[in-house]
């Protein structure tokens, strides 16, 4: 009996840890492979590379098309994040603690872009702008990005408002502080990490957006992920590996910074 228990416990642990190890490898392997291949000295994406060099990173210095696209993506992501924070934080304050049906309905509406196919929304937005006679521009692009990025800010901000200690706000009010003062000095500092984490995710997802940008950018506004996607559709270019290497390193650094500043991993659950 005891022996069977031992075997059963062992087989259970082996299965769980074995599958987790496969998942771990599956998650980490792509990033590692891209970084390794980006240092290849050859002209193909062969793995393992025939030799190592910095040539593809050096080549990026002259890749003005990619640089131009990266600048566009950065600008759009910054505008999108700023506007999303300005619109999203007040909305989060309004619906976070409201038990009313209307607040619940607004919450579902604001969250729906996370679930609905973004490509369908991109097409809908293109049809909308062309029917009302507004040509696509960086402005329409930012409007579309805000719709798909604002849910991230709402989610993390609402979660941090939910953790606020009511008594703190009450005592501030009972000590005669105005609501604005209480907001500035107590509420805002306490929910700031939530806002920051949400803004970070919104920024990353705007920078990375393809389905909305595909329809709402004009010919002059080349975006980095679209440029990379089109390059990959055409030919397998090693300089894309170098761009990917740069993006992975930037993402990783920003992630560590945000973990310090905002406790990112706790806010994503």
């Amino acid at each position: 009996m005891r022996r069977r228990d031992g075997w059963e416990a062992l087989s259970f642990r082996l299965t769980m840890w074995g599958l987790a190890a496969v998942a771990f490898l599956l998650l980490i392997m792509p990033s590692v492979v891209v970084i390794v291949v980006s240092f290849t000295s050859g002209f193909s994406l062969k793995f393992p590379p025939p030799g190592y060099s910095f040539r593809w990173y050096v080549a990026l210095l002259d890749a003005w098309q990619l640089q131009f696209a990266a600048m566009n993506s950065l600008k759009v992501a910054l505008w999108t994040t700023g506007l999303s924070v300005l619109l999203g934080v007040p909305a989060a304050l309004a619906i976070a603690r409201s038990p009313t049906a209307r607040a619940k309905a607004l919450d579902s509406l604001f969250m729906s872009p996370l679930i609905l196919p973004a490509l369908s929304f991109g097409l809908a937005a293109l049809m909308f702008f062309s029917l009302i006679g507004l040509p696509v521009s960086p402005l329409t692009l930012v409007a579309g990005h805000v719709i798909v990025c604002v849910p991230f800010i709402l989610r993390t901000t609402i979660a941090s408002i939910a953790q606020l200690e009511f008594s703190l706000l009450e005592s501030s009010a009972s000590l005669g502080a105005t609501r604005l003062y209480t907001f500035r000095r107590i509420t805002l500092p306490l929910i700031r990490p939530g806002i920051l984490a949400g803004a970070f995710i919104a920024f990353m997802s705007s920078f990375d957006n393809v389905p909305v940008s595909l329809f709402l950018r004009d010919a002059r506004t080349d975006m980095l992920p679209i440029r990379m996607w089109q390059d990959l559709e055409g030919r397998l270019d090693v300089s894309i590996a170098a761009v990917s290497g740069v993006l992975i390193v930037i993402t990783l650094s920003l992630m560590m910074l945000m973990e310090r500043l905002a406790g990112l991993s706790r806010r994503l659950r």
Partner: protein
Amino acid sequence: MMIGYELKLATPLAAFFVLFFVAPLLILLYVSLQADPGMTRMTAAQFGRFLLDPFSLGVLLRTLFLGVQVTLLCLLLGFPLAWCYLRGPAWLQPVLILVVLLPLLTSVVVRTFAWIVILGRQGIVNAALMSLGLIDTPLRLLYTEGGVVVALAQVQMPLMVLPLITALSRINRSLDDASAALGAGAWRGFWRVTVPLSLPGIIAGCMLTYAAAITAFITQSLVGGGQMLFMPMYIYQQATALQNWPFAAAISIIFLAAVLAVISVFKALGRLSQARANA
């Protein structure tokens, strides 16, 4: 005393959503009901054209089935990962969370590009199999449905693991001990205690993974290649290359409706499991 904030603070965002989200979706519905690209006549013919066409229906079914495969693979691998995150040693936790979060925040094009490198003819899988002498000529892994499923599983895995970690961390550890003390083996305890109690997390994770997998345009088109058509690419082709807006709008509406139907099934299951977990 007022501590909460008035609902009117949500007005700017609500107005923004009505203008740039609700209105476009209504326009999409309107365009889908047009008889021709010139938009001269209203009709439901576009929907009939899709629903009676075996090719179009095939694309829809293949897309929905792709989501099922990706979700199951994510669950099979993601659940043990979440379990090990909570049961593993303390030093492992930051490592695991980093490994889970990195793909979530890395550009989808970058992640997909990695799979092209891994699955390609000169890629890591073929190189490993050939050096082991298991195969003589490189296998075709890229541009296959299996390749798309594995690549999508990696791309969407964080969406499964994060809700699972939340759900598993809410389970009282002493329930495990109780189940063991009462004589249930590890497997029995897992299926009878852990899995039922984490059901809300499983359903939330499956919903997010499924919705993301069937709409993952970039990964589907780059790893799947030109021969394998899924709904997002179908919409894109009809809208841009063929400029057939009414039909593209109708496909979009059908796709939206299919996604909403699947989501509402998940939501209903979620409510049931929540009620059971609380009971």
